[in-house]
């Protein structure tokens, strides 16, 4: 039987009827037409479906929409005007941080969380924190370089 959920998605207040078995990613993509969130494995391993819930990255494929009642969800579409995300997008472009783009929404959301949470992260810490996001194209070197670059540039700005 369908259940009513109320949640905030990208700043909008949303009320919807959902089947309990619908996971958050399908709800975002099929019901809300927010297809920036990608689905890879659908069992929590690849990180492609990562979104922000109540300020923290979570995997939208193993959280059911019905259980997200009352939460504040942000998908990649909500970061168009985000200053840090704009910085990351540019660094990903210039450092070859993406090729096919399938992993990229999840990578960007995770990268932003790493930068905000761990401003002093070095390369090995970045790699550790990224270990839950799989990329089949880039070999990770460009992604890690992009994150390091944004971290370094932000540090420089902060110290001026």
């Amino acid at each position, binding site marked *: *039987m369908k*259940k009513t959920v109320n949640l905030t998605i990208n700043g909008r207040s949303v009320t919807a009827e959902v*089947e*309990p*078995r619908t*996971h958050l990613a*399908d709800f975002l993509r099929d019901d809300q037409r927010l297809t920036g969130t990608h689905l890879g494995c*659908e*069992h*929590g391993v690849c*990180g492609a479906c*990562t979104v922000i*819930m109540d300020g*923290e*990255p*979570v*995997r939208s*494929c*193993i*959280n*059911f929409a*019905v*259980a997200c*009642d009352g939460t504040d969800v942000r998908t990649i579409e909500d970061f168009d005007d985000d200053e840090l995300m704009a910085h990351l997008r540019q660094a990903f472009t210039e450092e070859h941080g993406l090729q096919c783009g399938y992993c990229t929404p999840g990578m960007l959301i*995770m990268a932003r*969380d790493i930068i905000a949470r761990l401003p002093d992260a070095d390369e090995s810490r970045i790699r*550790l*924190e990224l*270990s*839950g*996001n799989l990329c089949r194209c880039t070999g990770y070197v460009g992604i890690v370089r992009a994150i390091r670059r944004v971290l370094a540039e932000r540090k420089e700005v902060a110290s001026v």
Partner: protein
Amino acid sequence: MKAAKFDYERPADLDGALRLLGGGGDVYAKVLAGGQSLGPMLNLRLAQPGLLVDVTRIPELTRVEDDGEALVLGACVTHAMIEDGKVPDVTGGALPSVAGAIAYRGVRNRGTIGGSVAHADPAADWPTALSALGAEAVVRGPSGSRTVPVSEFIVGVFETVMGEDEILEAIRIPKLSADARWGYYKVCRKPGEFADAIGAVLVDAEHSVHRLVIGATNAAPVTIADAAEVLGGNGVPGASFDLDAARRLVDGADTNLDDMERHIHAVALKRAVEQVAK
């Protein structure tokens, strides 16, 4: 894949949750906590319950309390809360270091300590770590509450002493003395993966604790509660605890492992003990 059809309820309190679990008749009801193990199992249709009872908003299950001798963590406290020090640490760093090496940040933000213990996956971290720390599981059922050491709570692969109408309410973690020493070594091929082998050791001489645990076997974690002698006379691990000594312990335990796996477990145990010896 997509999950098969199920119903969903989110009771406001423990009694409501117990009623839903016990009163279903022919409906197979299952507790939903962080969903980080159950979610994949539902999507893969390895689990097909008729009803999920979401316990994450029940105040008793998110409480954090100091009862004097121990830290009591509600079952729904997340790995990330423990990793970030949002709950007190009474173990000299053992709790946050174990939490931080579970899965990935996105999983740790949702996955709970109680869910991990109730799930009883032998390859998971909390069953082994909490057995070594001497923690207890507080279980609530229709006829009241009982407390069981985590080392006895898990009885097999994905198997606990809990009935289907019971809920794991909290984990009680005894405070360690200031000079207690902790060793934990997880063998996995990629950070954040489930373990191939875990060795854990706690030496808390002040409380006469010398405990070893062999984890991530094909059985429940094996707790060696009285390891003072094997660790070397007065229980201070010395050179005598070499790979052969570790291997003898693994060989003597009921782990259902082949020769190569037993070697890996002996190495994990030895490396855990090395951390304590330093």
